[in-house]
């Protein structure tokens, strides 16, 4: 028992002490967060300078009072210009774009064309469209003798809130957040199982090809060596989660302190960002509505169960191959298949958590670690949950027992790669 602890210790410390461990642990979230932050930043920010847009209204629908200027865009009505000629000179006159409004020829039908050199940003297009639509509506309402204020009252949009009733009282649920958390957990387990499973396989092959395995198995049993490696690498994975958890919590506390006016900025950013503001609020609301404790527990359980089940399979593959990496790839493929299938079922399960495919996928032990994450924010019948967990633990024990025997023979065999038939024979040898 003492010896397996030594093996675990070695596997753990040699990996955690590596610079690359710290790098990936810190860089991966930074890259992911940075990536999303960049996308959001690009989407919500318009251009820095104020856009001046020349408007030539040949339909005579608008006057300057109808087109509202804001901080980013100012409209200037121009008259007595030939639209074709003006396209060539609007730039020289200091306008970034030129909006041309004209009849299409059909009755009551207008066309709006924005001439610009660079593609107009989404924000600019939205502002222009909103302005035109508002102006048109106001004009139409007035033409039909309806008070625009009365119409606004009629045109109210109702929002429905989903309250989750629980013992601690009602909480607001946000479908999008549950979706995102499920998907995030599923993809994390999917990635970690492959990343750490491959590490187990590489570690085993390394020990075999370095011939250190023969030295070590003269001190410890092959099974202890295999389990020590699997547990040690699993502990590295848990350490990585722990660091991420601390980082996330730290960031949640640090952001309001570091950027006190961040929310305000978002608030002021204009029409579009008003939605972002409510989104930020709904994210917070949605997060608080989720059963965080339950999610963390099941995430860790299914990560460990899935990792342990697959790690023993990866270890067996690592033990039968020698230097040739291509051999490893051939043998790894059948192991990766169910992981990938699990991922596919998971994406379906998020949308339809009670479909028979989702239920099957979350119980079948080779896919359950990933698929269950897709259903985790929903109420799962207790029976299904219990069956899935028992099957996962059972399959872990079964595969470890089975692959331990392949491993025991494999690490001391050199030369030709054994056939499937031979490996099955090893697995069921005494």
């Amino acid at each position, binding site marked *: 028992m*003492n*010896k397996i602890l*030594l*093996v675990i210790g*070695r596997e753990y410390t*040699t990996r955690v002490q590596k610079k690359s461990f710290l790098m990936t642990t810190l860089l991966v979230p930074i890259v992911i967060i940075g990536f999303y932050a960049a996308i959001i930043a690009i989407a919500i920010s318009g251009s820095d300078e104020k856009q001046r847009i020349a408007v030539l209204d040949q339909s005579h629908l608008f006057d300057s009072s109808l087109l509202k200027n804001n901080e980013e865009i100012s409209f200037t009505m121009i008259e007595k210009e030939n639209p074709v000629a003006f396209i060539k000179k609007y730039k020289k006159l200091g306008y970034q774009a030129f909006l041309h409004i004209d009849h299409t020829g059909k009755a009551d039908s207008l066309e709006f064309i924005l001439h610009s050199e660079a593609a107009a940003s989404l924000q600019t297009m939205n502002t222009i469209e909103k302005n035109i639509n508002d102006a048109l509506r106001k004009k139409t309402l007035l033409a039909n003798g309806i008070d625009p204020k009365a119409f606004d009252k009629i045109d109210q949009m109702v929002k429905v809130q989903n309250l989750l009733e629980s013992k601690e009282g009602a909480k607001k649920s946000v479908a999008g957040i549950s979706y995102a958390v499920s998907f995030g957990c599923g993809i994390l387990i999917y990635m970690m199982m492959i990343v750490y499973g491959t590490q187990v396989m590489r570690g085993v092959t*390394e*020990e075999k090809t*370095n*011939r*250190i*395995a*023969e*030295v*070590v*198995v*003269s*001190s*410890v*049993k092959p099974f202890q060596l295999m389990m020590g490696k699997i547990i040690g690498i699993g502990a590295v994975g848990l350490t990585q989660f722990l660091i991420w958890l601390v980082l996330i919590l730290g960031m949640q506390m640090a952001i309001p302190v570091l950027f006190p006016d961040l929310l305000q900025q978002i608030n002021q950013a204009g029409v579009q960002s008003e939605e972002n503001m409510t989104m930020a609020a709904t994210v917070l609301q949605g997060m608080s509505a989720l059963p965080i404790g339950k999610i963390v527990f099941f995430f860790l359980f299914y990560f460990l169960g899935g990792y342990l089940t697959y790690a023993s399979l990866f270890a067996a593959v690592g033990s039968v191959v020698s230097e040739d990496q291509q051999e490893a790839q051939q043998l790894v493929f059948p192991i990766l298949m169910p992981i990938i299938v699990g991922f596919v079922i998971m994406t379906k399960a998020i949308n339809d958590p009670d479909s028979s495919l989702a239920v099957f996928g979350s119980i079948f032990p080779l896919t359950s670690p990933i698929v269950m994450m897709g259903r985790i924010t929903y109420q799962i019948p207790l029976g299904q949950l219990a069956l899935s967990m028992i099957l996962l633990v059972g399959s872990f024990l079964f595969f470890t027992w089975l692959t331990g025997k392949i491993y025991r023979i494999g690490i*001391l065999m050199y030369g030709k790669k054994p056939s499937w038939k031979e490996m099955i024979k090893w697995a069921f040898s005494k």
Partner: protein
Amino acid sequence: MKNLLELHSVKKYFATQKAVDDISFEIKQGDIFGLLGPNGAGKTTLLRMITGIFYPDSGQILFDGKPFDPINHANQIGYMPEERGLYKKMKIGEQVLYLARLKGMSRADAMEEIKKWFIKLEMDSWWNKKVEDLSKGMSQKLQFVTTVVHRPKLIILDEPFSGLDPVNANLIKDEIFALANNGSTILFSTHRMEQVEEICNQIVLVNQGKKILDGTVREVKQQFKKNMYRLGAIIPSSIHSDGLFEIISRHADEIMLKLAPEQTPNAVLAHCIQQGLQIQSFNEVLPSLNDIFLQLVEESGPTRKFQSI
């Protein structure tokens, strides 16, 4: 001295090979024991059974008088396999410490012993280096330290000198003698016969999974001697052997002769003196282990064939 290791009719069959087929021998405590055999004779399989990596199909292994049990006895055995194995990326000091602790040493005890060995073999500046930085000879020395650092009763060395220069080979050889003098038993597997003659006192020769020779080096040589003598003298070409001996080869000042059956060296010497030869030397020439090895392996079939069991 009592026997540290006894093998009784040990067998291990693989799918296509009788790797070890009914082998028995004993090793006394403090002996330097040579396990010889051509490639593929079953030496590695035999060693793996003695180190507890494989279980014999049948037969018994006694360690220190008790049936061999890997869990209890693994800590008392040091095994250096033929194919050297170390973690390439691990620091040398940590690596030896890890392997020593896997053999049941406490951290403090292991540290003390490692430092002693590192100083003795002039490796004390290596502690923070990695194995990938070492030359082949250096990693060989390191492997030797990892094998003996936990003060094993039985030290198994599979080709310990391969890749070592003469200086380092001597260094290791001296350590092997010192360990044996301190009561460790050494089981030495090789096919380099000149090393065996120099180091071992007891040998076993295996081929095709079977033991074909067993005894001390002296006994074995006596057993296979061919009554050859080297006579140093100025010898006239007209020398007359009188049926006492047969001249095998002739040089300017010495001849190699083979005694005729039932003759003694004394008779030969008397005969030569009578003929007026000025004798300068007269020695018995024993066969080298190499010759015996070649002869026996030849007789018992040099290469393995795949056989069905």
